[in-house]
């Protein structure tokens, strides 16, 4: 006596529609559970996407060389005061170009300077580097050209400036070809950087970039702040790291006195942390799903006792215990399914709201979460209805029918 599934579904639907308040309450409980999982994982994913994006904007396949070593085998007193036994030099940077796995090398000096043009002046961050900095950092030019390709020890008096700096120094006038002063030196503006907002550490809009040798003269130093090395591919990152350590050690009389950071390592650490955070937040939200399941169980138990006479009647007219279980479970799964759909809509709408409110956060729920959450909602709804369904199937029809 297998009842056609279409009839089971119809009967379940009518049962749900017959008790709108109860149905609505359970739908809301389920929807809140599902919706909170969706929106919280979207939030976690958004945070992860934001951080990953920020790191990617630093450049790709980067290996960064810092002077000094944070974890030396041998404690050296200088390190305690932020001093290092040996500087990174332009010579070191040039030496790093001698590997086929290295695509670009950009030495970097950073200093705070006052830039002036006529009566206007402005304190900004000055970067000293070479022509390779532009492609390494994935910046683009708004106008003019970047630093020319030349020997890195040539202190050519040219400068590339950011958008904000251009506006503040030149206003509406054209800036290309104009001269500006840093300290007692004059530089000709040869390019304007395209605006790309903040990327970690540097606001490109408020920066001036000059050749590294000129920067070293201005800052009166021989040393570099960083060397950015771009590997040819992702697979080359580790070999390049080894090569860099070996090449620098060779030039520094065998001392491994630099720190080499691969962007990958930093990124994957963040990725791991934020991925774990997403899972944790999603897991907490999943508790509300379990709560929804328990609520469904309670309400289904009430529904069964409310409908005792109906279940007694169904038995009297020939429903087998299995058919009773099927009908109750069909009702529960329909309810869970509708609740899950409602919850998905709710979660997606909240995630959309989140994206509109925080545009830099790509708050999309991961696709696997949607599949998992719908499955979990269905399973929860059905599992928690097994007990009420069995209670119904075991009802004594004589007593069930005797009740009003």
């Amino acid at each position, binding site marked *: *006596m297998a*009842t056609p599934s279409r009839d089971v579904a119809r009967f379940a639907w009518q049962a749900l529609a017959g008790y709108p308040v109860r149905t609505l309450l359970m739908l809301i409980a389920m929807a809140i559970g599902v919706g909170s999982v969706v929106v919280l994982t979207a939030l976690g994913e958004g945070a992860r996407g934001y951080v990953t994006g920020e790191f990617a904007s630093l450049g790709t396949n980067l290996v960064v060389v810092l002077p000094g070593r944070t974890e030396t085998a041998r404690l050296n007193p200088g390190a305690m005061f932020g001093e290092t036994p040996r500087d990174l030099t332009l010579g070191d940077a040039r030496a790093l170009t001698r590997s086929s796995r290295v695509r670009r090398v950009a030495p970097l000096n950073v200093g705070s300077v006052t830039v002036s043009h006529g009566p206007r002046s402005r304190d900004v961050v000055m970067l000293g580097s070479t022509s390779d900095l532009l492609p390494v950092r994935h910046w683009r030019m708004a106008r003019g050209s970047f630093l020319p390709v030349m020997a890195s020890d040539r202190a050519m008096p040219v400068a590339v400036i950011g958008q904000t700096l251009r506006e503040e120094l030149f206003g509406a006038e054209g800036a290309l070809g104009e001269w500006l002063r840093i300290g007692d030196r004059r530089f000709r503006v040869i390019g304007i950087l395209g605006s790309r907002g903040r990327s970690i550490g540097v606001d490109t809009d408020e920066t001036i970039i000059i050749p590294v040798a000129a920067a070293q003269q201005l800052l009166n130093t021989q040393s570099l702040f960083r060397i950015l090395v771009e590997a040819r591919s992702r697979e080359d990152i580790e070999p390049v790291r080894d090569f860099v350590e070996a090449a620098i050690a060779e030039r520094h009389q065998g001392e491994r006195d630099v720190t080499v950071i691969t962007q990958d390592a930093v990124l994957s650490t963040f990725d791991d942390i934020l991925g774990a955070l997403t899972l944790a937040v999603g897991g907490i939200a999943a508790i509300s799903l379990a709560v929804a399941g328990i609520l469904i169980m309670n309400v289904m138990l009430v529904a069964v006792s409310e409908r005792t006479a109906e279940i007694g009647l169904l038995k009297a007219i*020939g429903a087998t215990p299995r058919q009773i279980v099927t009908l109750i479970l069909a009702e529960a799964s329909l309810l869970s399914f509708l609740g899950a759909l409602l919850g998905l809509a709710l979660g997606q709408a909240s995630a959309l709201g989140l994206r509109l409110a925080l545009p830099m956060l790509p708050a999309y729920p991961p696709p696997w979460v949607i599949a998992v959450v719908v499955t979990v909602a269905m399973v929860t709804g059905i599992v928690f209805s097994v007990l009420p369904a069995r209670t119904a199937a075991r009802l004594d029809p*004589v007593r069930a029918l005797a009740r009003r």
Partner: protein
Amino acid sequence: MIELSHIDRHFQVGDQRVKALDDINLHIGAGEYVSIMGPSGSGKSTLLNLIGLLDRPSAGSYRLDGTDVTALSDVEQAQVRNSQIGFVFQMFHLVPRLTAAENVALPLLLAGMTAEARQPLVASALEALGMADRSHHRPEQLSGGQRQRVAIARATVTKPRVLLADEPTGNLDQKAGGDVLAILEGLVDAGITLIMVTHDPAMGGRAQRQLAMRDGRLVSDEQGSPHGDP
């Protein structure tokens, strides 16, 4: 077709054992019109439920058409109830959210019949009870007499051989009750076996065969006047 021999049914109430049915022996033939009368607590409803396979005896044997139905499994008993027995209750027991037609279709639905196959059977069952024009009404939109007619349509839609009625007019006024009784007697004329529990001697007296019960025992079994006599 219904053979009960040495049927006992006990209930445990606290530490007391109540004999709801005590050594019942009864044979009812096909097409008989039987009334069971007695004061409340006499066991008449228990006997009806037992005949309807809603209850199992504590002892004794029950053969329906020669088959020992007490030995059947729950599922097999459900199939017997579905195909061979129709129930009519005092409280009607219609599912409130379903229309008259959907209520009548329930036994067929449980039997696994498709909607297309059910439709003509439901229509003719409602037609036979003069309820064709009410088939899309819900129970709350129907009067008591109309509800009971829908319930009878539901009980007869599977063409059962036995119809069990427990106080079928107990919740109806005299006019509607008379109509319902006439319908049930019409079914007897068409060949159905009707067993009706009632506490009303006037109604019970219309049956061809009248059983009286007291304290779980059958105390009398009389062949009365055939029904239809005013």
